[in-house]
Structures are given as C-alpha cells and as structure tokens.
C-alpha cells in the first residue's frame, strides 16, 4: 500500500518537474503584442475577418497584415482601441461613434438585417417595422449592406446630458 502511494507520488512529482522544464526551455516565443490585441478583440472566434479565430486576427494585426477595421462585430469602439494600441491613425476615428438607425417610413419588415446583427441589436419580426436598440448597437454596418430599401443608415450617436461634457479649453498661446 505505502509502496504504491509513494511510487505514484514520486512519479507525479517527476513528471511535473519535466513539464515545468519543458515549459521553460521549449517555449515558443510569440509577440507579446498578440496577447494584448487578443484581449481587445471580442474573443468569440466568429471568423468574419477571414482569419482563423481572434488569435489569428490578433497575429495578423500585430504583423501589419490586416487593417484595424478588420473586425465587424467590434464596431467603431474596437477600431479606435486598436488604432490607439497600434499607433495608427484612422480617418473616421474622430467625432461621436456611428450607430445604425432605421427610417420607419421606408422599412418594409423584410427581416434581412436582424439575423446579420452580431449583437442582436435589431428587433422586429418579418413584416413588422424593425428598430435598433441603441445601447447594443456597435455601428459595424453589417445591416446597412443588406437593407433593400436603404432605410438603414449609420448616424452619429446623439449627445445627451449624460454623455455631454465640457470641451478642452482652446488656448491662444498653444498650451
């Protein structure tokens, strides 16, 4: 009995030590940026970017093979976060974020848009006027592409008293 317990324990400790050594000396060096970028990405491996999962997308981003606008589900906030991380400038990065907006007068309730929405921000059923939940919309624009009547548009988010804040003072002497 004791011999069995002892031998198994020794075996376990030895194997653990071997694994530890392997992890230290046989480690594959990766770009630390990959991991940071992967943290920013949604992490659901939807594959819409054309890379194998978010890890693949992060690698492509880090090596400069993909633009920061690669991730449709991430929307504008992600584009800005990636641009800031990688130190690149994006044209549409300034101003309030864009959100989808449905013109109720021209919506025909075709229900083409709602299945495409990565965050389920579009509500409505077939032959019913659809609506966008503004808080859930990320402005990726996937819905805009399929709307047959062009009633779906990306518009800048409206400012409210909760989101407005004082601008930075403009100084004549340049700060």
């Amino acid at each position, binding site marked *: 009995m004791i011999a069995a317990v002892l031998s198994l324990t020794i075996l376990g400790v030895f194997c653990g030590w071997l694994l530890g050594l392997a992890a230290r000396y046989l480690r594959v060096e990766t770009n630390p940026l990959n991991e940071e970028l992967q943290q920013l990405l949604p992490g659901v491996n939807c594959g819409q970017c054309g890379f194998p999962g978010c890890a693949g997308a992060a690698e492509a981003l880090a090596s400069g093979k993909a633009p920061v606008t690669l991730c449709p589900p991430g929307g504008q906030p992600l584009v800005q976060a990636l641009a800031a991380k990688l130190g690149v400038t994006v044209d549409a990065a300034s101003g309030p974020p864009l959100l989808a907006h449905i013109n109720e007068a021209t919506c025909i309730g075709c229900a083409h848009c709602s299945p495409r929405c990565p*965050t389920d921000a579009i509500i409505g059923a077939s032959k019913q006027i659809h609506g966008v939940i503004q808080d859930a919309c990320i402005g990726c624009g996937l819905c805009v592409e399929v709307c047959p009547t062009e009633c779906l548009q990306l518009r800048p988010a409206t400012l409210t008293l909760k989101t407005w*804040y004082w601008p930075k003072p403009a100084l004549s002497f340049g700060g």
Partner: protein
Amino acid sequence: MKLFDFWGGVHPAGHKHLSADQPIRIMPPPARLQIPLQQHTGLPALPVVKVGESVCKGQLLARGQGAVSASVHAPTSGTISAIGDFTAPHVSGLPLPTITLDSDGEDRWLDREPLPDPFALVPEQIAVHIAEAGIVGMGGANFPAALKLNKARQAKVHTLAVNGAECEPYMTCDDRLMRERAAGIVDGVRLMLYALQAPQAVIAIEDNKPDAIISMTAACHGDPQIRVVVVPSRYPAGSAKQLIQLLTGLETPAGGRGTDTGVLVHNVGTAYAVHRALRQAHPLISRIVTISGGAVAEPQNLEAPIGALVEDLLGFCGGVNGEIAKLLMGGPMMGQPLPSRQTPMVKGTNGVLALTAAEAQLTTPSPCIRCGRCVDACPMGLMPLEMSKRARHDDLDGALAFGLIDCISCGSCAYACPSHIPLVQYFEYARGALEAQERAEQKSKETRRLLEQRQARLARAEQAKVEAAAKRLAEKQRAKAAKAGVGVAA
C-alpha cells in the same frame, strides 16, 4: 461653540447689496411653464398625466422611478399642453424630457389634508412624506432629500448641519428666507432631526448676514437641540465638506461622503421645503430665487414657480438693462452659463444672474507662471496647476493621481489665477473624458457578452435542429417497423 478652519478659500466681492434688502416677492405663474422631468440626481420621473389633461396646483405630474429619483408636481392649475423635449437648464442647451403646463390663471389647489401631527409618525414615515413632496437638496446638489435622510439615519449621524452660509456672491435667497421665514425653517429642522433621530442641529450662517443671524437665533430660542453658529465669510464656507470642517475640524475622507464624519448637511431651503410639505401638504412646486446682476433692471428675490422660464423671471424683474455679457443659472463661482433665456428654472436653481461686460470680466488666458496661488486657494488641498497641466495634455490618469476626483469645482483656483486660466473647465473636461472612457469600456464588455450570447443561441438552435432531424428519422423508422410488423402479423 469652537470653530475650526478649512484650508484655502478666497474672498470674492459679495455684490449681495443688489438684492439683499429686497423682500421676497411672490411671482404669479406665467402663462406657460416648462417642467423638466429630471430636476434631480438619478433617473427621470415618469409622467402620470396625459396631454390635454387638466391638473390642479400641487397635483402629481410625474412619479419618481427607482431608488434615486424624485416626483414632480404641478406648480399651478392648468392644462398639460405637451410632454416632450425642451431645453435643459444646462450649458450645453441639450434637451430634457419636459412637461408643458398652460396655466388657467386660477391657481386652484388640489384638496389638501395637512397631517395633524407629523411627530406622531415614525421617523421613516417622515422621509416617505418628504419623498412624496418631491423634495431635493436645494443648495444645488439636487440629491433626493428623503434618501439622504434615510442613509444618514442608518449611518447614525450625530449632527445635522443646516447650511445658511450662502457664500456665493450675488446670492441672497437663503438670506431672505432666513430673515422672513425663520420659524418655518426651524420647524423643518426639528422635523428633519426627528426623521434622522439625531440629537442636535447647528444652523451655520456667515457673519455677513447679521439680520438673518438675529431672526434665526430668535426662532430657535429656547430649543436645546438647535443653535445658530456664526461662521466667518470666506468662499466656499457653504460647501458641505468645508462646512463640516469648519464645524467639527474633521476632513471628509477622499472619495467619501460628508456623513462619514457623522455630520449631515442640508440647506436652509430644504428645511423650509420639509416644513411646508409636512405642515401644509405643500409639495416642492416653488422656491426662492435671486434675480440679480448689473444687467437686471430691478434685482430682487422671488418666490417663483418651478418651470418658469428665465425670460419670465427677468421680465418680472423689470427686464434687462443694456446687453447681457453672461447669463448664469446660479452664482458667478459655480453657476452654469445659459445658452438661452428660454430655459426653465428648476428645484435646484438658487438664482439667475445677468452680468454686464464689466462684471463678467471676460479675459483671455495666458500661460501658467507656476505662482502657486491656485494651490493656496484650493479648499480641498489639491494642486490645480498640476491637474490642469495633465488634463491639457490628456494625461487623464495623471490628473486622477493628483486628486481630480476630490475637486469640488468651487472655482476658487480659477478666481485666484493671475493668468486667468479656465482651470475648472480643464477639470470638468478631464472628468467628462474619463467618464466617456469608462462608458466605452463598459460598452465593449457588453458587446462581448452580447456576441457570446448570440453564438450560444446559434449553437443551441443548430443543436435543436440536429436533434429534431434525428427524432424525425427515428420516428420514420419506427413507423416503418410497425408497418412491417403489421404486415407480418397479417
């Protein structure tokens, strides 16, 4: 009573003589009132009336929703002509959901039943009545008063400090209220003390209001629980944290609340509103406002209905002389610049100032010379020059490390600055930018959650499809087998 001191502070010119000797005039309701549904911290109130409905004075228009909210009542009788967006009393001029009430000129009250004896109620019930009357902190913080009382009772505060310091220049509304309606204030203080179950109250008044000190001392004469304390006139003695420091010598911990020191601060106007709500069943539908400034023809103190437009208030004071260089809601130190006169006054409005160019002293900023006067002036012991430098270069975390969150936006630093740097605007900008960052982070977290949920849902649907197909197949086979079985039996 021994007084302590607070760090910093400034001595801006008072300008109180413009309106200090004008008795409170009751302003009749104008033809149309714009009553915002959000006049308080927290969630907006939910309307309980419909467009076209006629309402009586004092009738509930919108009920507070959620834990932090306040109800809104009709300031006069009339018809609801619209429920929609209207310019908020805010520097941005953005809209707020607002109820429009067209006065019928009768000012007809709802049937009121004042409580026979509020002291017969349990303390919690007093707070319920205060909440029903829609009372918020009237010193400008706009925090629902009942909630503040309840929290303070649970925190077992030992002193209620009643704030009659009124340190903002030009403002005389609290001064007039204390001079003319001292008995009501003291009754409100007694009610609040009972609701708090606290042993003592201190009414703090700055020494530049001798008449108010006399009338308040007379009103609380013989009451062992309440006393008047005269505090030196120095801005911002009327700020809650500085007032606590003056009275107790205790500093509110960074990021903490005033009640952490065992003292709850309420404005004299709030005490008076509590008195009216419990003794006369009079909800918070009007308040005292100071209309002053060099551009106002007859500066005075009005008891005006909530929802009256700045235009109406100025019109009632004889209109405007010359050109307004700066229109402010509140005092010159902490007031909000207003983009338009078509904005309503709300429960937290203590005054409207129309300043001439000479008074407003519109200056152009020049570079910081690091003289340190802002550091000497800051009552919170912060270093405004370091914080503004970081805010200017968008080093928000750096500004945060220098105590940005503890800034009370009193404006003492900007007042003391010889370079006229808009320091407070830098801090407001930095705080807003930090909040925007937080919102963006929150949104990306939410997005991730929504994406995951969608993927899970799609996977579930796929799984269900596969199972349904398998079930159909199995059923088909069973039916076939049964048929074959029947065939064999036959």
